């Protein structure tokens, strides 16, 4: 902001973009801000390096000889810092400066500071041995940082790499919106192709297109650099050609009303369902396994969404219902269950499971539901652990096998049509898909009913809801039970799929992951919740289930945490928010927008009417 004074532009129209002021000179930087941001980047990079991410992920190649996921984790930081440092805060009536050498120079300087962190780390690694407190302080890390050369090389190269990458980040601001979109699309296409490699290979095998993937991917993983260039060019061209088409289509759909809207939505749902039904036929074991895992978590997340998203009850012990569902299905179907083993067919058992979980939901809910806010969250957390400890305990081991769990669960047979067992992930996926459809239907219908409105009212203001004639205890309890039953479906399928249940499958971590999925995807929105599961569980992996980036499993929680923090800062309503939720979070801004558009009538209550007139006229 130390640059030339902005020329007066006067009141710019609300719709027209204000004209850009001349770009700032390259060296007139806000140095304090720049160094601060660079230092944050440096700390972040050292942290990433010492978390052992680069060494672990070096195996996973993105572009064959050039870039591995490990180096990517280090490069992304100076890039982000360099991009961020050129950010101008938009101020009403103040013109924006055009991007120019200033941004590139600033990005380079900031990136160099960030890279300096690694230079320093390389020096320290070479001269000290801090393996005692820092377990990842290894020669391998030093070697990786120095690209196999001497330490001196590492010091220089990271400063240079930081500066270069930072300059690239800053340079991104020079591009017009269209070019930038193309560049981002290209990066996403290459990154996506690399991340989805196992999936793409698997699918290609199913469709007999191995020739294509052999061309795209190197033999031992990673994209060939020639194909990477081709892919980037192709997606870039596509992005330029199809610019804004998708957004236009989406806006068009959003504008539709009434019957047309219903029909379009119906078509979209049908298309999605068709893809989901046909896809597994071509997919191999790996993809189906992945889809089944994602589906199990979609089911859980939909259940929790009823509780947290609709009724606003922060349940941190949701895994309890997953556990009860799994265990009761196991006891009812497995011949090896210790005490009672009726060996019911899976579907019959499911009915009993639903009743049992519903009762457990009532039993846990009844005391819990009278509490509010933080207290409720803590108590549900406790109940979640209690259930797991009960299954683990010696006291009940005669029933549930204690830490031995229950094994040899036969799997799910449905009218003799299919026999789902762990050996065939495709059938598991179809089963999960059917129950997901059921859960989606239930959430969708309930949300638009008297009960759903009551849930919303309770979420908004419980005291007032009570005063408006809503029995809040009953209504909340019902949300709890509906959530419990949906969770038990997932549990019953889970035990049939895995073939065994152990208490340590139901750690508190599962509750947290489901909650993160719901928050990340968009609380209160069915599509959002599904998207959240697909991204988090599909790509990063569930608490015990590997995702596409299996190498990440060690750092899963770290990344979950980082994603959650970023989400809360940048987009608190989630990936695909519900309309209501974003209203809630952006109430003031939206009210302001509406006011600017003249949709809100004047609030012209002057003091004449509102002053205290407490004295009776005499």
């Amino acid at each position, binding site marked *: 902001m130390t640059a030339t004074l902005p020329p007066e532009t006067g009141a710019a129209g609300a719709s027209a973009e204000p004209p850009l002021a001349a770009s700032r000179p390259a060296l007139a930087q806000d140095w304090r801000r720049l160094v601060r941001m660079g230092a944050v980047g440096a700390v972040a990079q050292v942290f990433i390096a010492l978390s052992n991410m680069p060494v672990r992920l070096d195996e996973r190649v993105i572009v064959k000889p050039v870039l591995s996921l490990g180096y990517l984790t280090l490069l992304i930081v100076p890039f982000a810092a360099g991009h961020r440092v050129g950010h101008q805060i938009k101020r009403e009536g103040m013109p924006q400066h055009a991007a120019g050498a200033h941004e590139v120079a600033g990005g380079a300087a900031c990136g160099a500071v960030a890279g300096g962190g690694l230079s320093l780390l390389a020096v320290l690694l070479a001269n000290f041995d801090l393996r005692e407190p820092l377990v990842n302080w290894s020669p391998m890390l030093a070697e990786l940082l120095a690209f196999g050369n001497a330490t001196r090389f590492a010091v220089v190269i990271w400063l240079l790499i930081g500066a270069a990458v930072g300059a690239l980040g800053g340079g991104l601001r020079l591009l017009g919106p269209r070019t930038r979109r193309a560049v981002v699309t290209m990066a996403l296409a290459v990154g996506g192709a690399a991340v989805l490699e196992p999936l793409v290979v698997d699918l290609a095998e199913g469709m007999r297109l191995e020739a294509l993937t052999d061309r795209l991917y190197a033999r031992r993983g990673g994209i060939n650099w020639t194909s990477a260039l081709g892919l980037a060019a192709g997606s870039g061209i596509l992005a330029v050609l199809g610019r804004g088409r998708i957004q236009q289509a989406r806006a068009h759909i959003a504008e539709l009303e009434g019957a047309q809207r219903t029909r379009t939505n119906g078509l979209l749902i049908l298309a999605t369902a068709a893809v989901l039904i046909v896809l597994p036929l071509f997919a191999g074991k790996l993809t189906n396994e992945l889809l089944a895992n994602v589906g199990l978590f979609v089911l859980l997340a939909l259940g929790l969404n009823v509780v947290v998203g609709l009724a606003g009850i922060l349940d941190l012990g949701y895994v309890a219902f997953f556990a009860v569902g799994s265990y009761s299905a196991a006891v009812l179907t497995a011949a090896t269950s210790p005490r009672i083993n009726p060996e019911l067919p899976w579907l019959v058992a499911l009915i009993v499971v639903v009743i049992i979980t519903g009762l457990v939901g009532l039993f846990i809910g009844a005391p819990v539901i009278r509490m509010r806010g933080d207290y409720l969250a803590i108590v549900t957390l406790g109940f979640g652990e209690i259930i797991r400890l009960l299954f683990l305990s010696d006291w009940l081991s005669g029933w549930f096998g204690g830490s031995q769990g229950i094994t040899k669960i036969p799997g799910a047979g449905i009218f003799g049509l299919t026999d789902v067992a762990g050996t065939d992930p495709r059938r598991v996926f179809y089963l999960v898909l059917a129950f997901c459809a059921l859960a989606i*239907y*239930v959430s969708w*219908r*309930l949300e*638009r*009913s*008297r*009960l*759903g*409105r*009551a849930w*919303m*009212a309770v979420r*908004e*203001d419980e*005291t*007032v*809801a*009570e*005063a*408006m*004639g*809503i*029995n*809040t205890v009953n209504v909340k309890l*019902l949300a709890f039970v*509906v959530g419990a039953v949906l969770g038990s479906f997932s549990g019953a399928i889970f035990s049939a799929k895995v073939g065994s249940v152990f208490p340590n499958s139901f750690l508190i971590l599962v509750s947290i992951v489901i909650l993160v999925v719901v928050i990340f995807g968009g609380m209160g929105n069915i599509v959002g919740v599904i998207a959240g599961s697909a991204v988090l569980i599909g790509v990063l992996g569930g608490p015990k289930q590997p995702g596409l980036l299996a190498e990440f499993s060690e750092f899963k929680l770290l990344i979950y945490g980082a994603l959650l923090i970023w989400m809360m800062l940048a987009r608190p309503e989630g990936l695909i928010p519900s309309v*209501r939720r974003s*209203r*809630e979070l952006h*109430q003031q801004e*939206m*009210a302001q927008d*509406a006011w600017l558009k003249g*949709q*809100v*009538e*004047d*609030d*012209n*209550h*002057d003091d*004449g*009417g*509102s002053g*205290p*007139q*407490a*004295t*009776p*006229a*005499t």
Partner: protein
Amino acid sequence: MSATNGTPPAPSTGSPTNGDGHRPLLETRDLSVDFGGLHALDRLDFEVHEGEIVSVIGPNGAGKTTLFNAITATVDVSAGDILFEGASLMGLDANRVTARGIARTFQNVRLFANMTVLENVMVSQHCRTRQHAFGALFYTPSFRREETEIRERAEKVLSFFGSRLVGYRFDQPAFTLSYANRRRLEIARAMATQPKLILLDEPVAGMNPVESAELTGMIGRLRDEWGFAIVVIEHHMDVVREVSDRVVVLDHGTKIAEGDYAEVSTDPRVIEAYLGHGTEAS
């Protein structure tokens, strides 16, 4: 809406009766609410008859809102009894009180801000409707019929306020409304619970004189057209003069005066409660 049936009128507890000798719609007997050592309400006898508009006035901290809270079971009653249509409200949850036929608004407007205008009014019909999860899941004819009824009733209630809360406003979230409209919506929400008695807590607070005068007229219409009995807490004396059949003055949780506006406004105890002792103000 008639509440009188064959039961004998409840024995009067000495408070002046204003009606025609019928049993009062709402009656409190020796009602006390204590907050620690503070007597927010102290052995209060208060009654409302059918079709009556009663104003409750008094200085700040006199216990007016506490009276509303006690009637609607939002605070615990320490002693005494509250009778509605001859039956005690003691021990009922707030939602049961509303189901019996008492609705209220709040001094600091408390709408369901992120629900739409229509939803606000639809959700408050909860205790008058009965469709549950089953109907919603299977989309039964009775579910559809009831949804239509709820919607129609909501639209009817909202149209009471003229063009202000209808049309495109149905689907606007409540927080986009202006202050005056929020107050109106709160009244609409109370009306939709299909009560016999509405408790209005400072309905015109924060409105300008024009809006205030308009709402004053509406309070009269609420009684005449919808048949509600109404209790109003109000600080604006012109509103009180305009709407009240009877005025009750509270101070320190006790009733210090009661009667029509002219009587109350010249009562020396009332003037003292508002302005303090003449001797002290030297």
